[in-house]
């Protein structure tokens, strides 16, 4: 760990070396390690120490960007010069107004020394226990356990000087019991806040229940979507249309002030909420604001970075995604409002339907209609008369996310913290399954 002072000192060199009208620098330094297992053995076990020093130089309203992972003074000077050269040779961008001015940033504790120091032996030992939980239940384990830390500093020539240190721990496990498969994951800023063994047990039990799946005809079925599946739908909404750039380019589904989902759907972004994976500021050093995006089904707001905000005379909400900013701002800490049902209640209330643990390989077919396709995976079950009766072979779905969120009948109290979303389970009507596979 270099610490705030040293990180800002290194990052600040870019500002010292730069002759551009405005300059922004982001410095990331960190270590990450990942232990991967399959067939109940560790087969890949890796560690990395890396850095990134990225400079955005502004000359007039022309912008250049250059990045290096070499932190000696000569490399830093040369990357600053490259960004300036690119800016000088670039074309005018009349939409660019300025880099953001500094704003107070709320301190958030996102670093945990135990997680940063989690050793190869610790990871191997925990993986051994995950494998054992599978073995006890007759399941073969695959997955990964990763831990790491990063220090992140953002500075610009207008006075932004933001620093954050952060740890993260993730576990993923896919269990296989003959022809049955199960999945679970967990992620947090602290290793002590994830429960790899609970994930192992959940995945193994799903796999065991999923043995000998039977085919079912594709068609429209009521569904109980577990949080992993719901999280993926919400992530797609974020990616497709909850950023200002998508709205400005006319490719977003957001019709402000209009109802776009059922009244029971509320989705917001809050990067400071500890129930998610907090981050105090964005890739431009702008403090993250809570943004209520869909409120009781009504399209309310999208997230901004400084470029898209200044284009509309607004303030950035602190959602810049970094790099050259080409992808535009994105909500990265989304929450879907939980309901008051339990997952058992949802199953009880389903006459005939399909329980989906998670989706696989989802992709967009029509962005404005939010039509996506994908497969079910790692635990698909038939529900009949309020009971889970048998495992099913995986199905392909092709459906509109907004359409399905307009037909949600029940939402669970329980939520799961996934990568970018904290999501509940839902029960929805008439989900469109369009194909079936052989397992």
């Amino acid at each position, binding site marked *: 760990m270099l610490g705030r002072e040293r990180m800002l000192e290194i990052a600040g060199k870019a500002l010292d070396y730069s002759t551009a009208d405005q300059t922004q620098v982001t410095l990331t330094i960190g270590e990450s390690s990942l232990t991967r297992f399959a*067939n109940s053995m560790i087969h*890949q076990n890796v560690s990395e120490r890396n850095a990134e020093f990225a400079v955005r130089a502004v000359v007039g309203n022309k912008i250049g960007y250059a990045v290096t992972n070499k932190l000696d003074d000569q490399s830093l000077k040369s990357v600053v010069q490259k960004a300036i050269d*690119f800016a000088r040779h670039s074309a005018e961008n009349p939409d660019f107004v300025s880099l953001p001015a500094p704003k107070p940033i709320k301190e958030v504790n996102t670093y945990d020394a135990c997680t940063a120091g989690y050793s190869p032996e610790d990871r191997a030992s925990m993986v051994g226990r995950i494998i054992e939980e599978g073995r006890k239940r007759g399941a073969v384990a695959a997955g990964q356990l990763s831990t790491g830390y990063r220090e992140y500093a953002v500075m610009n020539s207008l006075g932004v000087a933001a620093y954050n240190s952060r740890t993260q721990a993730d576990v993923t496990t896919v269990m296989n019991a003959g022809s049955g498969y199960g999945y679970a994951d967990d992620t947090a800023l602290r290793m002590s806040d994830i429960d790899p063994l609970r994930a192992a047990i959940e995945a193994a039990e799903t796999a065991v229940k999923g043995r000998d799946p039977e085919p079912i005809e594709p068609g429209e079925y009521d569904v109980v979507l577990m949080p992993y599946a719901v999280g993926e739908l919400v992530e797609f909404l974020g990616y497709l249309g909850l950023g200002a750039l998508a709205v400005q*380019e006319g490719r977003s589904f957001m019709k402000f002030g209009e109802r776009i989902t059922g009244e029971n759907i509320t989705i917001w972004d809050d990067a400071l909420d500890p129930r998610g994976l907090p981050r105090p500021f964005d890739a431009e050093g702008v403090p993250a604001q809570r943004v209520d995006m869909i409120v009781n089904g009504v399209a309310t707001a999208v997230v901004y970075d400084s470029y898209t905000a200044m284009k509309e005379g607004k303030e950035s909400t602190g959602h810049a995604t970094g790099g050259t900013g080409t992808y535009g701002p994105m909500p990265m800490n989304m929450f879907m409002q939980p309901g008051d049902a339990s997952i058992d209640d949802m199953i009880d209330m389903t006459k005939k339907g399909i329980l989906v643990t998670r989706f696989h390989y989802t*992709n967009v077919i029509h962005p404005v209609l939010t039509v996506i396709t994908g497969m079910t995976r790692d635990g698909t079950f038939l529900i009949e008369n309020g009971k889970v009766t048998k495992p099913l072979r995986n199905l392909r779905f092709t459906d*509109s996310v907004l359409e399905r969120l307009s037909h949600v009948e029940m939402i669970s109290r329980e939520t799961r913290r996934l990568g970018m979303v904290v999501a509940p389970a839902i029960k929805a009507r008439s989900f469109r399954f369009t194909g079936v596979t052989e397992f």
Partner: protein
Amino acid sequence: MKEYTERALDRIRRLGASYGDIRIVKNMAESLEVKNGKVEELAASVDEGFGIRVIVDGAWGFASSLDISLEEIDRIAEMAVRIARASALVEHEPVKLSPVEPAEGRFVAEVEKDPWEVPIEEKIALLMDADRIMRQIPEIKVAESTMSFWRTETTFASTEGSYIEQVKTESGAGIEATAVRDGEVQKRSYPASFGGDYAALGYEFVESWDLVGNAERVAREAAALLEAPQCPSDVRTLILEGSMLALQVHESCGHPIELDRVFGTEASYAGTSFLTPEKLGNFRYGSEIVNIVADATVAGGLGSFEYDDEGVPAQCVDIVAEGIFCGYLTSRETAAKLGLRSGGAMRADGWNRIPLIRMTNINLLPGDWTLEEMIEDTKKGIYAEMVGSWSIDDKRLNFQFATEVAYDIQDGSLGEMYKNPTYTGITYEFWGSCDAIAGEDEWHLWGVPNCAKGQPVQMMHVGHGVAPARFQNVRIGVMETAEEDE
């Protein structure tokens, strides 16, 4: 570099590794994007470091660092060995590697026009011209023109005596016009979607595509799609254009033949494969005219090299011969499990990632038709062009692709344009229905620079040589039913 590689190999031997290698990699990249008349991206990057991979107590360990110094090499070698010993704490089968002859040499893939020698103004001017022409069509709300260049210098050395240096340059470019009206969004791209086409060639490759000369057509087609009817839902004959077929090969052939995936080592990410070892040599993957090879030796391919990242020489491996599945993409470890020698498909995305089995150039060999003859020979069908989206199940059986555009075929002639086309099927049934493949003249080696695999994820540059091909009885157009209720 020898000072560093020898230090690493000496260190890991002393620490008790039965095998070890080090890769020192320097990657330079440059990317440009012009969007709606503005330079949205003008970026350069330099990324450098080393990774050490070892086998200790029959288990793998890998550690890597950005700091190429003797002290850091000592530290990382120790870390790699410590990690391998930790891997070995969990019950495992000891890793065995198939043999490979040690190799030495320096291999520089020369290009005609070094992209780093072409002035940045010239590149921007080309993209600006294409952008301006696309935006002359009023319906075009987003015009994007992009170029990317990479240069990778790799030094590989192993405890078995290999010392190999390779330098590779890659280039790519493309344009995309998005038309928007009344909530409808449609796009067309050239020469392929998602950034265009890529090759292990210089700037001459970018110039060869004539982006400016195609800009108006691309924009007009995107605008025309706004008016086009929805592609019907039906079971029909389907003819696929090359770049779409390249992705079909990628998803339904390239991934399921990765032998590490077959053995389950990708189960926790994108999944496994239906092409299990008992099918090798006897499973009918496609019709008799379907011949597929994994060829790392073809000039200019994104999946071409002299040696893979285990020091195994580049090869051309038969994958499907006259429709029968007959080969895998392999590594030294996986090949040994089948009693084979490695086919040389281990590739790493940079110094900080371990090599995994990756596609080289997975090529569908040409047939003896022309695209024109295929269309003339089709009574009722669909001709579909360029990738819209893709999805396939976790054993690579059930797939669904969307294309940017389709055209009706009636009685041997191309007719009406359709929007939102999709097609779906089961891999071996689909390839089993292939009854025509165009010939050498229409065969092109496409570059795909964004193939994702592994945890932590690695993006690989791979190639697919294909010519347009025809498939019978394909389920077309599930989108129609999804849109009806909007």
